[in-house]
């Protein structure tokens, strides 16, 4: 390849789109490194503290699209205190000062302020796409700035963010000249919006393909919107409540028949089950159905709906569908690849909605299943072994038994053998979450068989350091390991310190790691940031190295200690 001029090599690199491949390409030789960095447009940074914005800008002057992730995954479950970090502000400031022509920004678990959003909206004339997932810290004023100032905005996608809603006017901030919208998702906003503005916006957006509404958008507005945008591919319904005998409802039924491009359906944040029949005509073509925010639909409503969805590839649903309902899914949705079953009431064990039976039925009926997130009340080894026989294509397997450390109810054994079977037969497994009663044995299986595993989540499992060691030694491709409430301690942590440089991050909370061990690790591995999160009232950390650390988060970094840490974080 050295015989070719740079332009030719660059052209070849244009076909290499995956981040991993691009990263690999850049390591081949200096010349390729140089060519690759000038031609790179999309950069993914899995941990915003692993690099600084200045270095990013210096290396990739042609950057157009940036993806950043902030807080550790367990922040989703309130294990990371407020103000821990993950601020996007320094990134936007640095990019704004530079000559980077940013067009796309995707953030996950980051803290975003209205000022940042305003600066973003004013600094990049070609800005096209903003996707915020599980972020917080901003209000609808920030959203308004994006709407008002990004003249060529194509995508505004707000997924599951905590947004302070100042009501309504942000939608009206889209100028009349804005006709470029392709995707608009504001389902997570709680407040009122100007419905007339919304209708006008949709009417002047001929390229609109994806529209997800929030709960205040009523059914009659939905009907009007669908009239204007029958070309929609992805629809998120806000409020779906009306009298089935009303004229508005008949109009809705009629217009839905025209929306034969819809492949993805979600929302139903408020729903009257009797109105669901209007949806049936579009069910035939659906590939993605998300009813996980629709607790108003009971098991049989769900089942009736699903029976029409023969082409479904991804299904997100609440556990009120029940085992029987899952059986219907199994016999109807033969193309199913991804299933997520969420708990409708996380704290009520009385209503045993789905069990191992539902999962077995799914595995038997859906041979293409490769991604699973399943919250259930119980699981047996036998069921997992059956699932492992039926499905060998799992890439993601996340099982959450609601009662932590619950054993197999039939045999009273730990679930080691069941999970062992899963990892043995699914050689492509990249992500695994465990639950139930588990001993060190399951980790031996994981270390032996889960050779492609990249992310592992463990809670209330294992007996000793051996468990963690099996995983660290066996899973060569491990990138993210998160552990809570397990008896893993210093011996496991310090056995192979170099391993952590090959991983993005390690989280350990309520385990048996001491402060002394963390200090040792931090001292020996300067390329790691070892953070201790200490939420007690102490102002100075005790020098007692035997203190058990409550929460430790370590990650590899090229730029040393971060400057924005809160008081309760100790950087070793």
């Amino acid at each position, binding site marked *: 390849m050295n015989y070719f001029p740079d332009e030719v090599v660059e052209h070849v690199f244009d076909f290499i789109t995956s981040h991993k491949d691009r990263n690999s390409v850049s390591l081949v030789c200096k010349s390729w490194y140089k060519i690759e960095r000038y031609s790179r447009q999309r950069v993914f940074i899995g941990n915003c503290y692993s690099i600084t914005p200045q270095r990013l800008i210096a290396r990739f002057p042609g950057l157009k699209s940036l993806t950043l992730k902030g807080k550790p995954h367990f922040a989703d479950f309130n294990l990371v205190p407020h103000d821990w970090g993950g601020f996007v502000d320094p990134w936007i400031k640095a990019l704004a000062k530079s000559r980077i022509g940013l067009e796309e920004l995707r953030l996950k678990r980051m803290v975003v302020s209205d000022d940042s959003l305003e600066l973003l909206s004013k600094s990049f004339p070609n800005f096209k796409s903003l996707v915020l997932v599980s972020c917080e810290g901003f209000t609808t004023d920030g959203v308004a700035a994006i709407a008002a100032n990004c003249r060529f905005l194509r995508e505004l996608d707000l997924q599951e963010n905590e947004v302070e809603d100042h009501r309504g006017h942000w939608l009206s901030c889209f100028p009349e000249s804005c006709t470029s919208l392709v995707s608009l998702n504001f389902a997570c906003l709680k407040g009122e919006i100007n419905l007339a503005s919304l209708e006008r916006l949709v009417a002047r957006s001929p390229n609109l393909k994806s529209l997800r509404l929030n709960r205040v958008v009523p059914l009659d507005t939905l009907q009007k919107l669908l009239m204007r945008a029958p070309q929609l591919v992805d629809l998120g319904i806000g409020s779906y409540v009306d009298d089935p005998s009303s004229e508005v409802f008949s109009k809705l039924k009629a217009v839905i028949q025209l929306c034969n491009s819809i492949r993805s359906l979600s929302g139903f944040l408020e729903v009257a089950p009797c109105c669901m029949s209007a949806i049936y005509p579009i069910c035939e073509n659906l590939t993605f159905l998300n009813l996980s925010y629709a607790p108003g639909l009971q098991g049989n409503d769900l089942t009736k709906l699903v029976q029409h969805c023969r082409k479904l590839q991804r299904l997100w649903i609440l556990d009120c569908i029940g085992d029987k309902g899952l059986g219907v899914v199994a016999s109807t949705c033969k193309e199913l690849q991804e299933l997520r079953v969420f708990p409708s009431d996380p704290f009520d064990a009385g209503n045993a909605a789905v069990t191992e039976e539902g999962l077995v039925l799914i595995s038997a009926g859906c041979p293409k299943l490769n991604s699973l997130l399943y*919250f259930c009340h119980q699981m047996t080894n036998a069921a997992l072994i059956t699932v492992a026989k039926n499905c060998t294509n799992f890439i993601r397997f996340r099982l959450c038994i609601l*009662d*932590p450390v619950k054993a197999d109810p039939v045999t009273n054994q730990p679930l080691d053998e069941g999970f062992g079977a899963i990892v043995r037969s699914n050689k492509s497994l990249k992500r695994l979450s465990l639950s139930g009663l588990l001993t060190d044995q399951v980790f031996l299986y994981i270390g032996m068989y889960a050779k492609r595993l990249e992310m592992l989540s463990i809670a209330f499992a294992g007996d000793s350091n051996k468990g963690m060691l099996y995983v660290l030694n066996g899973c060569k491709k491990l990138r993210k390991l998160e552990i*809570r*409430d397990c008896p893993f301690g210093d011996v496991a942590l310090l056995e192979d310190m170099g391993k952590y440089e090959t991983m993005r991050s390690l989280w350990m909370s309520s385990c*048996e790691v001491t402060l002394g061990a963390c200090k040792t690790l931090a001292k020996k591995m300067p390329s790691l940031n070892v953070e201790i999160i200490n939420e007690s009232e102490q102002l100075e950390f005790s020098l007692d190295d035997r203190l058990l650390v409550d929460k430790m988060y370590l990650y590899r970094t090229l730029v040393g200690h971060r400057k924005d840490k809160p008081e309760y974080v100790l950087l070793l």
Partner: protein
Amino acid sequence: MEVGLKMTMKGGGGDHVGGCDKEKMGFEETELRLGLPGGGGDGEVVRKRGFSETVDLKLNLSSKQDTSGIDPNDEKVKGLHQEKNLLLSAIDPAKPPAKAQVVGWPPVRSFRKNMLATTTQKSSSEESGEKAALVKVSMDGAPYLRKVDLRMYTSYHQLSDALAKMFSSFTIGNCGSQGIKDFMNESKLMDLLNGSDYVPTYEDKDGDWMLVGDVPWEMFVESCKRLRIMKGTEAIGLGHTKSCGEMQEEKLKEVGVVNRATCSFDLVGRLLHACTSSSSSSSCDEKLLQSQQMDAWMDGAVWLCYYY
């Protein structure tokens, strides 16, 4: 938790300035934990795994604690463990802890939990018309409370019958079930209020304590949150005479009155206690209460007096 706090404070006093020098003591003093106070001479470490302790309690996994730096033969440690287990079992006697106590479990995003909670709340409030209207009923002097479903009855008369039956075993003095029935009858109310008999009262949606019988039955069922059968003498402040209320008002003005929005019943109770024992009011650091709020607020304060 409260027990633990008391114990650590007992050991350490208020001096944390020399924290560095007697660092082990300092750490143990300030550390919130369940265990013996002070005296951690060798600095054995006690884990503060409050939430997973609750799981441990349920599942007897406490054997896991005997690893990693703690010498299980150390008498002190054994003592600590026993102490811890005792304390834990004192908190939660025989039954397993509620699952909700385990932080971050099940691993459902808070956004999702909140969304589902809002949606379920809305739909259940729409349906509440059909559901049972269960309210707690307390009677002064009775050892335990009862619950009634107000939708089972269609009139005050029926309710009074039911209450009479429920509490007939607890009546003191000359009240009896007839006395309760009589209170439902407004014309007899004023006579009986001046006696030592019982008065049925209820707390409405706004948190105010009202006399039963004033509003139409349906309105009562909609707005009643709980019932209390008070001793007649205590009920005097409830919208009939203000003598008791006025006295309290004066006393409180001396003390320095409280902003209703921010005070808790506990605080109010303590203030009233301070009034009655004429102790110094220098610890009160609150804002003035609006006088029109005072009346409604005093209704609640009346029954607090009963406890203080």
